[in-house]
């Protein structure tokens, strides 16, 4: 499958890169914890920051296939270390990228139709307590039957690094792909505004403090790169282990990941 993925991108002239898995900073995301080494370096939760710095420095469309780490995540669909496929397409928006994600998935799982649903139609609302929304969303996804569905129009406070769209009722230009009830991919029409990113990082850290957790240092080099100019692009990350699980018809990562936690 890894060879199939690489062939897919070679055909489209998307270049494979390998960025560090160990960094001086990591994400400020309030619900993602980074593992920290005894020397104070962070294992990266996604190659996003490094890849965006490459794009800002003038690289063409790129992809990375490699391990990422998230502290404390362990379950039948979670492992602290997992394999992520992440790619960025210059000049694409979220719609164009969803089409490319579908093409990749069709090649690996066989062709099938893709439904579209908004976040609001799944969670019932985009307002209210974020934790309740997360639970409503997670349970709605789990109840999906054997379907492939792109979820779009995420609430503004779940924009992460996606740009916002719509003036009256803004939504994040973010999408997820759910297959057979498994959250497989998460993508954005990328935010390119450094000031807005700095504001979101500050908000993330306030949420961390409110929850009694350690704030994370901002990635100043990403902010500087974005201030220099991140080209218009869309990016997406896919959980490769979950994809293997779906290809093999397994129901837990432990069945497909060698040396899994449990």
């Amino acid at each position: 499958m890894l060879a199939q993925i690489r062939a897919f991108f070679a055909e489209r002239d998307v270049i494979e890169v390998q960025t560090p898995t160990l960094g001086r900073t990591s994400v400020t995301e309030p619900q993602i914890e980074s593992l920290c080494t005894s020397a104070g370096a962070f294992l990266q939760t996604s190659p996003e920051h490094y890849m965006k710095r490459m794009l800002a420095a003038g690289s063409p469309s790129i992809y990375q296939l490699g391990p990422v780490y998230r502290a404390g995540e362990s379950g039948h669909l979670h492992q602290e270390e997992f394999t992520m496929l992440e790619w960025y397409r210059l000049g694409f928006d979220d719609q164009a990228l969803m089409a490319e994600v579908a093409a990749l998935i069709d090649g690996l799982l066989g062709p099938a139709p893709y439904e579209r649903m908004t976040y609001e139609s799944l969670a019932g609302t985009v307002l209210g307590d974020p934790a309740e929304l997360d639970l409503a969303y997670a349970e709605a996804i789990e109840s999906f039957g054997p379907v492939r569905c792109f979820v779009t129009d995420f609430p503004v406070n779940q924009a992460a690094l996606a740009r916002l769209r719509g003036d009256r009722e803004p939504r994040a230009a973010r999408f997820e792909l759910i297959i057979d009830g498994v959250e497989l991919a998460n993508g954005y029409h990328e935010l390119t505004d450094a000031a807005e990113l700095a504001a979101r990082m500050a908000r993330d850290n306030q949420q961390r403090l409110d929850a009694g957790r350690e704030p994370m240092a901002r990635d100043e080099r990403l902010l500087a790169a974005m201030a220099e100019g991140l080209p218009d692009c869309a990016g997406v990350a896919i959980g490769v282990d979950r994809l293997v699980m779906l290809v093999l018809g397994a129901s837990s990562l432990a069945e497909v990941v060698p040396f899994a936690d449990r």
Partner: protein
Amino acid sequence: MARYATNEFRAGLKVLLEGDPCSILENEFVKPGKGQAFNRVKFRNLKSGRVWERTFKSGESIEAADVMELSMEYLYCDGQFHHFMKTDGSYEQAAASAAALAEALPWIKEQDVCQVTLWNDDPISVTAPNFVTLEVTETDPGLKGDTAAGGTKPATLSTGTVIRVPLFINIGDVLKIDTRSGEYVSRA
């Protein structure tokens, strides 16, 4: 009393939920990629036997329950409570209500060794041994020679429980019974 956080939840852990002692059956980690992590937990209520499902935010904690499972010998019934004794040589006794004994009572007699679940040293449930031997006190007369072919009839055991037995069984026979299925196994 100690507390357990969601990341310590394991099958078999004994906790207090809404005031009742429960045993954790399953603990499932649920998390949208960028969202709050949850633990969806299945419990068996050790008093009622019912299965409960609750969802916690990861990191929340619940109180531990002082629950022990012991082998204890059934001594006697005083009309209201059923008395059991520890088999560890301590001769310590505990009295169980009929409710705690509901499932075991049709099968056990004095001196049978049962699995007793104690909560704060009180028996809350009693499990009969997998196999018990009980005498038949009432049944239709046995049919001579019918030792192999099918056919069953009701028989009343010394505990008052009625089970289906083969036609050749007589009053006074001692039978081996599987308490999990409630079925006749053989003559003891």
